[in-house]
């Protein structure tokens, strides 16, 4: 399925993601990583630790609503795969980001921005394995 090429919206959205990462660093001195956020909610270091993570997450889920208020249309979300792929993919992502200590936000944005040597390895590895997986799923298995 084709999707529209959106360089302006994507750059702008990316800049906002970056702004949020900078805000969290300025306010709390923390990396903005979705993996670390969820891991910290599952096993918080303290009540205060749980509270700020929960607030951050609460803010995050308002994204689609704010988008709708700003643009008058719901954000685009098309899921081209079935429930089995979502569960299998979700499990693999969960296991992978826990062992890999981060995902697209923690390694891909924050880690690369501060030239973390671990992120400089992690990002090309997961980008390559995602591309390889998509190739196999779409062009070898023909899903």
């Amino acid at each position, binding site marked *: 399925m084709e999707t529209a090429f959106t360089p302006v919206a*994507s750059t702008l959205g990316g800049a906002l993601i970056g702004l949020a*990462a900078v805000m969290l660093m300025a306010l709390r001195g923390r990396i903005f990583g979705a993996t670390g956020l969820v891991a910290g909610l599952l096993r918080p270091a303290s009540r205060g630790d749980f509270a700020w993570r929960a607030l951050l997450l609460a*803010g995050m889920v308002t994204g689609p609503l704010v988008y709708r208020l700003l643009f008058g249309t719901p954000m685009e979300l098309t899921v081209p795969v079935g429930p089995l792929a979502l*569960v299998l993919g979700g499990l693999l992502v969960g296991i992978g980001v826990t062992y890999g200590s981060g995902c697209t936000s923690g390694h891909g944005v924050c880690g690369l921005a501060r030239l973390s040597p671990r992120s400089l390895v992690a990002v090309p590895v997961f980008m390559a*394995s995602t591309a390889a*997986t998509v190739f196999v799923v779409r062009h070898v298995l023909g899903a």
Partner: protein
Amino acid sequence: MKHLATFLTGAVFGLGIAISGMANPAKVVNFFDVAGAWDPSLAFVMGGALIVTAIGYRLVWRRTRPVWAPTFDLPQSRRIDLPLVGGSALFGVGWGIAGFCPGGALPALGTLEPAVLLFTLALIGGMLIARALMLVAARRAPAAEPNRSLT
């Protein structure tokens, strides 16, 4: 004030994800489908995010400390090891299969789409499985590195 600013930080991230297309699996998967319906948009998401973060971090680090914390809490490990490489590779396989990454899925929960909820529950399940496996491994080899810090 603290609470509001933290909430707003999350909201900025969530809006950025919504605008960028990172929470739209069809778009995400097409970025990686160079041999098919290629959509290069995600490179612009990463570009925009990286420029702002790389410059913004350096400005922030000129301060001696964050506003509400005693120090900047940055991951210090430089170790390139099997969990990092293997875990990242596994993450990519899951991302390619489902089309969601954690940072895209969490804000997308706000759409109330059942698919996002299903992915997120599986994601949490996977994280708990990995934690349990790490605990078992740590018990078998007590000399091994204890709890790894997450970025």
